[in-house]
């Protein structure tokens, strides 16, 4: 399957990946509306961690033997056997946050308002995930592994 990787050497921490991720997962597809008027505000499923000159755009790596899938109390987290993508079934997720505890990348975003876990879905329906497509520095790459 294809996965997104960060080339830390050229990631400058501009956070545009977060912005595009938020927009992609917003109800409104309009940037201004999504950011200024949506309530609850759209949440990014990826995150930029920074320390000094190191910046890392972090997202779910769809682990083999994913610890989140194993830990999920309700069965909401499941791996799609065809696409190998780890999905959250939003109807079954109750926001218990057990998955957050076991994720080595802290790649699951708690939507505390709607009580459900959010994670990178590799932008289903897009040829290339929007974070990769819109990274101004080509710091994000979409790799067949």
């Amino acid at each position, binding site marked *: 399957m294809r996965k997104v990787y960060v080339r830390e*050497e050229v990631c400058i921490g501009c956070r545009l990946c977060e912005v595009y991720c938020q927009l992609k997962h917003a109800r409104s597809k309009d940037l201004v509306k999504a950011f200024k008027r949506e309530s609850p505000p759209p949440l990014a499923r990826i995150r930029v961690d920074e320390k000094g000159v190191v*910046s*890392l755009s*972090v997202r779910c790596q769809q682990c083999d033997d994913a610890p989140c899938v194993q830990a999920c109390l309700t069965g909401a987290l499941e791996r799609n056997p065809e696409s190998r993508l780890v999905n959250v079934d939003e109807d079954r997720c109750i926001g218990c946050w*057990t998955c957050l505890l*076991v994720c080595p990348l802290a790649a699951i975003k708690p939507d505390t308002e709607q009580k459900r876990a959010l994670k990178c879905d590799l932008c289903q329906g897009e040829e290339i995930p929007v974070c990769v497509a819109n990274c101004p520095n080509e710091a994000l790459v979409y790799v067949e592994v």
Partner: protein
Amino acid sequence: MARAEKIKYLIIGNSAGGIGAAEAIRGVDKAGTLTIVSDEPYPAYSRPLISEHLSEGRPLEKILYRPADFYDKNKIKTLFGDKVAQINFSERTLELESGRTIAWQKLLLATGGSPIVPGMEGKDLKGVFTFTTLDDAKAIDKFLKQRQGKIKAVVIGGGLIGVSATEALLKRGVEVSIVEMKDWILNTILDEEAAALEAVALSGAGVDIITGHTVARINSSLLGEVNGISLDDGRSIPCDMVVVAIGVTPRLDLVAGNGVKTNRGIIVDRRMATSVPGVYACGDVAEAYDFVYGENRVTPVWPNAYTGGRVAGLNIAGKKAEYGGGTAMNALKYFGVNILSAGMVTPPDDSYEVISQRGDGIYRKVIIKGGEILGMVFAGDIEKAGIIYNLMKDGVNVAAFKEALVADDFGLASLPEKIWRARLEIPASEEASIVPPVELPEEAVIDE
């Protein structure tokens, strides 16, 4: 005796552990006969969600752990609503309460725990409940529906199950008092400070919390129904119902005096094998490796049951797999307070170092010894807790960057480069190809 059928893989217990094993077995062997026996009459459901069943009537279909066609699809024969009465380990057979005898080649004991009910006066009265099964939740629901007017409950035990029951009862309009024997609620999974955050939320929701006391007796009305409890100091609290939630204990009845080595739970090795060849155990009934304590312990939480079951299943089906170990770990979301904890929550003595950070509903704490993390409690801001948990699980020496672990801006970038690279790097595989192609700087693909 009639010739018994011989099942290749037999699993007792249809919950986290049993399902983890069944899925692993089917990943290896698609056809070998596989049977799951459970005395609960339902397909596997998420046990923690019995609270949602009680509070908001979430039906069985919406708390199922796996899709309804799971058993058919995986060619799993189910014997639900039947109880294993006894096991004959030398003959490799077992007897069901319904009278059948089944022969097995490999057996998994995933029998979980049963609620502890102390032998106090009044424990058998109408209106006394436990809260560990869907049927328990249904029984409470039925009781509440039959009663008119304001109902008052006493929950005995302020642990996870007690708090879970309390939240559900409160949502049903019941007035609740919790009686906790120790000094603070949730004392086995939270330290005093994090528990206080939860206690404030509970009190704010109207729950009366009594700590440092036990219930000496449940009092009865003339009709044989609960009408109150008496505390160990003689005080009494009127109530219409009682939920006994002081803990669960490994369900060892099937192995008692049977040659299977037990301590608090069934002792298993890193392959989840018991002392009897061909017999495995996992989940709440098992005492498996705890990576924090470096020894076998009972860690009765859902993720460990599933993962232990998975390891057992792989070994049962002939693959070699080792349990990396589990530790006590909990995620709490009760009353809107989000808390994650794992490992030790209070240092046992002052040879441990505690690093913490607090403020504005946020609390982060890690316990360190010899450079390694042995425990963690994160409240309010829980987003990065998984990074810490995995440093603990991997036994990483954090001495050089320990202060960063509880900082506001903690993230993967706060870790030494070697660690974040290992977690984020493109796997060095020959097939790895980049779409669209870009030039990678050398060091990004070199495995250190």
